[in-house]
């Protein structure tokens, strides 16, 4: 290159850290080890003390109940209902939570007016409202979607407000000095800047959305994993009951890690994406 003013030499593009560090490998060893140890203890306790299968079934029978569940199309129907209610409710919570959050963080009087109500709705035990939703919206999917949305809404709202309020004043100065429009400020500064916070809200929110959907299914109708769980309880099929719980847990994991993948995709520049 004949360019005299390129003073700091550009480093070679490949100079990267090794792809996987030792600390990142550790959970791949410890997690299975701990799970195996837990299952072994469980098995040992059940067989040694002759515990009744109605109280605590052995891990083996829970496992076979779960495998049986995986082969049953009815169980997949329930799973799909729960997934649908969770994701649909979560989507509503996301749109309204982010929209209202940005508005509250931007408009002073809106925050002052809405704050008491937001706090009030925060402290209401929302699960106690589920019967009311069933009364209002019936035993169908709507009441579950609404419970999921209501539960997921608050962490998304509060994190969005926090995110927009934490925007660096210097970054705002840059946009002001560039004469950016309100929309440009939202799209190019507020949204990307608040995104790490919003994703944190989403991580909490998605888990609450599943809880909301399942609690909704406990009380209304006979669809979804929540209803399935109640049915197993009433039938004294404790091993199947455990299997449903495991099924729900795995579902929760999938959603949670889905948001994590979204995080790495959307904000690769942020520390939380672990670059």
């Amino acid at each position: 290159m004949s360019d005299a003013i390129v003073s700091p030499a550009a480093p070679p593009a490949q100079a990267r850290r090794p792809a996987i560090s030792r600390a990142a490998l550790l959970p791949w060893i410890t997690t299975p080890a701990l799970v195996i140890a837990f299952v072994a203890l469980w098995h040992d306790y059940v067989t040694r003390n002759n515990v009744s299968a109605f109280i605590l079934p052995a891990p083996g029978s829970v496992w076979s109940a779960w495998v049986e569940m995986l082969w049953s199309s009815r169980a997949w129907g329930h799973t799909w209902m729960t997934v649908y209610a969770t994701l649909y409710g979560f989507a509503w919570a996301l749109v309204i939570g982010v929209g209202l959050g940005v508005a509250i963080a931007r408009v002073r009087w809106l925050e002052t007016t809405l704050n008491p109500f937001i706090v009030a709705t925060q402290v209401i035990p929302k699960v106690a409202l589920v019967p009311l939703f069933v009364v209002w919206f019936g035993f169908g999917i709507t009441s579950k979607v609404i419970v999921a949305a209501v539960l997921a809404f608050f962490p998304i709202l509060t994190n969005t407000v926090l995110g927009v309020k934490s925007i660096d004043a210097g970054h705002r100065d840059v946009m002001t000095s560039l004469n950016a429009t309100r929309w440009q400020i939202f799209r190019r500064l507020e949204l990307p800047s608040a995104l790490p916070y919003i994703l944190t809200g989403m991580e909490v929110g998605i888990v609450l959305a599943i809880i909301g959907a399942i609690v909704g299914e406990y009380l209304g109708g006979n669809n979804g994993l929540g209803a399935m769980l109640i049915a197993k309880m009433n039938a004294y099929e404790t091993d199947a009951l455990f299997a449903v719980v495991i099924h729900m847990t795995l579902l929760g994991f999938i959603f949670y890690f889905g948001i994590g993948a979204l995080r790495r995709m959307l904000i690769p520049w942020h520390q939380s994406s672990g670059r």
Partner: protein
Amino acid sequence: MSSVAREITRPDAAPAAIAMAGIEKWYGTGLSQVHALARTDLSVPQGELLVLLGASGCGKTTLLRMIGGLIEPTGGEMRIEGRPLWRDGRRQDEAVAELGMVFQEANLFPWLTIEGNIALPLELKGVGRSERLARARELTRLVGIGGFEARWPKELSGGMRQRAAIARALSYDPDILLMDEPFGALDAMTRDAMNLELQRIWMETGKTIVLVTHSITEAVFLADRIVLLSPRPGRIDTIVDVPIPRPRTLDAQSLPVFQDVARRLRHRLNEIS
């Protein structure tokens, strides 16, 4: 009639890059009011490198942000290339378009790469992608960070980030560059290097630059003229010309005229604070 108004109406001369008449600033209301800047008249001809120098709290940032249109003056009139910056409490777009700002922090957006940051102003103005990336590449060369276009801001050193911030301010080719202690956070050696670079960029581009600093050495090295501000309330104390030929090298610091100007500034600063 103020001297500024006369200057603007003179038919033969181009309007001053920056002209202010009776500009003042009060912060807050009631008992907690602060008189940050008393009525100030100042005119900056096109192509000048003007330095605002003064002790902490004497209103340098306030004055610079008023020139940049980031805060509205409590009173007085600010003109950019002859056009008023404010009209009925609204900032005027044509005036702002000629202003580029560089802050003490680089203020790069961490979610954009270096070229994304440099090209941001062009993106906001609707310039097409290939054109703005070409411009970003050209500017990284100009400010000496060629080859770092695709990096994230956190992968660059403080000095390199500040170079990128300068490139961002230059991207849309404003006539005037406003810099608030742009090198204040850098170590002495990097700072010297950046001063040389800034002089080179200024000579290559012919911009008007107003730069705020605490450092007497930096002021004398860079400035055509130094405006010394005194505190409580902030106001212009003295204006000093720096008759050192360009391009100046770091050795210029040992010239008698450099030391003379620096000594006068130091004495005056001690007297007024």
